[in-house]
C-alpha cells in the first residue's frame, strides 16, 4: 500500500502546486456551438420574417438591422437573404443574390385575397413553401421557420367591421374562401353572436389549411427541425388599438364605448385563439415541429414592458407619413432609418439619440429591432428547451 499512499501524497502536492497557477485569471468566455448543427435556415411567411423582398425590411432601416429570423439564423452561424424580389408588379427570383433561402414576403398571408390574388401568388405562404419544395428537399441540418396568419386576422377584422356598411359582403367573401355558403348563411342570419362566432370557425379552418401546407411542402419533404410561429395578439398593435378606440368612439365613448371596445377585442382574440389552439393541436406529438407561442410572448411584453426593457409599447417609433384609405396613419419604412430617428427624439422620450431602441413598435403593426430581438429570444428559449440549440 505504501506506493499508493506515496503516490497520493505526491499527487496532492502536485495538485496544490497547480492550484496556485489555476487561481490566476478568470476571463469570461463563450462556446457558441449549438447542440444541433444547422447548415441552412429556410424561412416562409410575411413581413415579420421578410429579409428584403421590397428592398427594405419591415422595421427600422439600419446598416445592421437583423430581424428575428436573421437573429435565429445567426445563432447557428447562418445568414439569410430574400429569395424573391418585387419587380413592381410581381415577385421574381432574386437574381442580384443567389442561394437565398428566405422566401417570406411582406403582406404574405395563409390565404391571399388582395390585388393579383391567385393560387400561384407567393403572397400565399403555402406557395412560398411549395416553391422551395419544387426546388429541393430538406435534410436534418435544415432549420425551417414559418409564420403566417397575422395578416389573415387583420383581413378578417377589417371585413367584419365593414359588415354594417357593405351588408357583410366582404366578410362573407373572405369566410367563403374556407367555409361553405350554408355555414356562412346560417351564421350571418343568426345575429351578432353567430356572426362573430363564424370568425372563429374560419380561423380554425385557416389553421387546418396552414397545417396541411406545412405538412405537404415541408414535413413530407424531409424537414426535421421546423419552427412554426402562432399568431401574435395583434389587438395590442398600435394599429388595432386605434381600431378598437374607434369602435369605442362609435359607441359614444364612456362606459358603453369601453364595453364595446372590450367586447370587440375579446372577439378578435377568440379568433386568434381558435387558430392558435388548432395549430397546436395539429402539430401536437410531432417531434420535428416546435410551435412557438408568439401570442402569449407578445402579450407578456405588452403587459410588463419594463421587465422586457421596453420604454414604449404604444407609440410607433417611425414618423407618420400619410393616411391610409381606412383612415389610419401610414408609415414609410425606407425613410425610417436609425439615423433619422436618432436625430429627432420625440418630446418626453428617454435615452437621447437611442430613444427608439427601447420602443416596441416601428410602425403601427411591426416591431422595432429590439422587438425583433425579443421575439428571437422567445424562439431561442423554445429551441433550447427542445434541445436544438
Amino acid at each position, binding site marked *: 500500500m505504501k506506493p499508493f499512499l506515496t503516490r497520493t501524497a505526491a499527487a496532492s502536492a502536485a495538485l496544490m502546486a497547480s492550484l496556485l497557477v*489555476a*487561481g490566476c485569471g478568470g476571463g469570461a468566455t463563450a*462556446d457558441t456551438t449549438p447542440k444541433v448543427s444547422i447548415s441552412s435556415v429556410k424561412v416562409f411567411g410575411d413581413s415579420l420574417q421578410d429579409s428584403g423582398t421590397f428592398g427594405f425590411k419591415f422595421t427600422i432601416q439600419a446598416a445592421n438591422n437583423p430581424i428575428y429570423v436573421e437573429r435565429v439564423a445567426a445563432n447557428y452561424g447562418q445568414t439569410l437573404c430574400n429569395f424573391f424580389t418585387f419587380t413592381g408588379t410581381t415577385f421574381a427570383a432574386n437574381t442580384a443574390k443567389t442561394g437565398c433561402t428566405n422566401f417570406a414576403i411582406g403582406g404574405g398571408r395563409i390565404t391571399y385575397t388582395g390585388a393579383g390574388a391567385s393560387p400561384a401568388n407567393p403572397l400565399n405562404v403555402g406557395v412560398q413553401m411549395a416553391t422551395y419544395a419544387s426546388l429541393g428537399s430538406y435534410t436534418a441540418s435544415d432549420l425551417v421557420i414559418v409564420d403566417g396568419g397575422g395578416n389573415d386576422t387583420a383581413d378578417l377584422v377589417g371585413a367584419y367591421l365593414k359588415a354594417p356598411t357593405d351588408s357583410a359582403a366582404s366578410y362573407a367573401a373572405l369566410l367563403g374562401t374556407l367555409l361553405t355558403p350554408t355555414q356562412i348563411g346560417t351564421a350571418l342570419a343568426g345575429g351578432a353572436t353567430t356572426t362573430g362566432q363564424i370568425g372563429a370557425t374560419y380561423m380554425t379552418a385557416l389553421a387546418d389549411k396552414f397545417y396541411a401546407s406545412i405538412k405537404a411542402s415541408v414535413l413530407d419533404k424531409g424537414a426535421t427541425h421546423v419552427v412554426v410561429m402562432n399568431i401574435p395578439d395583434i389587438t395590442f398593435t398600435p394599429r388595432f388599438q386605434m381600431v378598437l378606440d374607434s369602435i369605442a368612439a362609435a359607441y359614444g365613448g364612456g362606459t358603453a364605448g369601453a364595453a364595446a371596445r372590450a367586447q370587440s377585442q375579446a372577439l378578435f382574440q377568440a379568433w386568434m385563439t381558435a387558430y392558435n389552439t388548432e395549430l397546436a393541436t395539429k402539430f401536437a406529438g410531432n417531434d420535428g415541429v416546435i410551435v412557438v407561442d408568439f401570442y402569449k410572448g407578445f402579450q407578456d411584453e405588452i403587459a410588463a414592458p419594463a421587465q422586457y426593457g421596453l420604454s414604449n409599447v404604444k407609440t410607433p417609433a417611425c414618423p407618420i407619413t400619410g393616411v391610409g384609405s381606412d383612415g389610419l396613419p401610414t408609415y414609410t419604412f425606407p425613410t425610417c432609418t436609425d439615423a433619422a430617428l436618432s436625430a429627432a427624439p420625440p418630446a418626453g422620450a428617454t435615452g437621447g439619440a437611442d430613444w427608439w431602441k427601447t420602443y416596441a413598435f416601428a410602425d403601427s403593426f411591426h416591431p422595432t429591432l429590439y422587438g425583433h430581438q425579443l421575439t428571437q429570444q422567445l424562439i431561442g428559449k423554445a429551441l433550447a428547451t427542445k434541445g436544438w440549440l
Partner: protein
Amino acid sequence: MKTKFLLGAATAIATFLAAGSALAQSAGSIVVYGGAAQITPQVDSGDLSAPSLPGTKIDVKKATSFVGGITYYWTDNISIDLPISAPFTHDVVGAGAIQGVGKLGTVKSLPATLLAQYRFGEASSAFRPFVGAGVTYGYFYKPKATATLSAITGGTPSNPTTLSMKSRFGATLELGGAYNITKDWSASLSVTKTFIKTTGSLSTGQTIETTLDPVSIKFGVGYRF
C-alpha cells in the same frame, strides 16, 4: 478518472481499517492529506434582473474534484484545517421561467476554507469524530457561456453573451470523523455546509442574486509529518 480514484481510495481505507493505530492526532502534529470532494450547491436563486423573462432563475449543479489540505493540531483536541482543492467545474443551468433550456454555462470554483476543528476522544483513539467551523472564500473564475445563453439573451456568435460570478466569503460548518490507520497514516470523511451567496452577471447587463449554500462531502487520506 474520478470514479477510478474514489474506488482506489475506498479500497485503500478498507485495507487500513484492519491495521493498527497510533498517536497520529496529538498536539503539534501536522497532517497533510489528499482526497476527493463533491460540492452540491443547495441553490436558492433570485430572479434575473430586467430586461428578462419574468422569473428567470438559475441552478448550479454539483461538481467533484480533488482536494488536499493541511491539518495542524494545536492541542490534542483542537486542530486547524486548511483544505485546498483543485478547481470544481459547475454547470449553470436554467430554472424558473427558463426551466428546461439546459446548460447556460460552466463556472469554475475554488473554495478556500480555513477551519477550526474540535476532535472528540483521546489523541490515541482509533476513531475520532470532529466538528468544525470556519470561513470560506468562494473564488469563481473562468466562466464559459453556451449558445443557449446567447440565444435567450439576444447574443450572437460574433457578440456572445457571457456570464460571471462574484467571488464571496461565507461561513462553513463541518462534521466529520477521522480514523487513525497507523501511527502516521489516517483517513477522514467529513461533510461541510457553507453559507455563501453570489451575484451572477451577464455581459448584457442583467444580474442575479443566488444563494449557493453548498454541502460538500470530502474524503481524504493523510500523512503526519
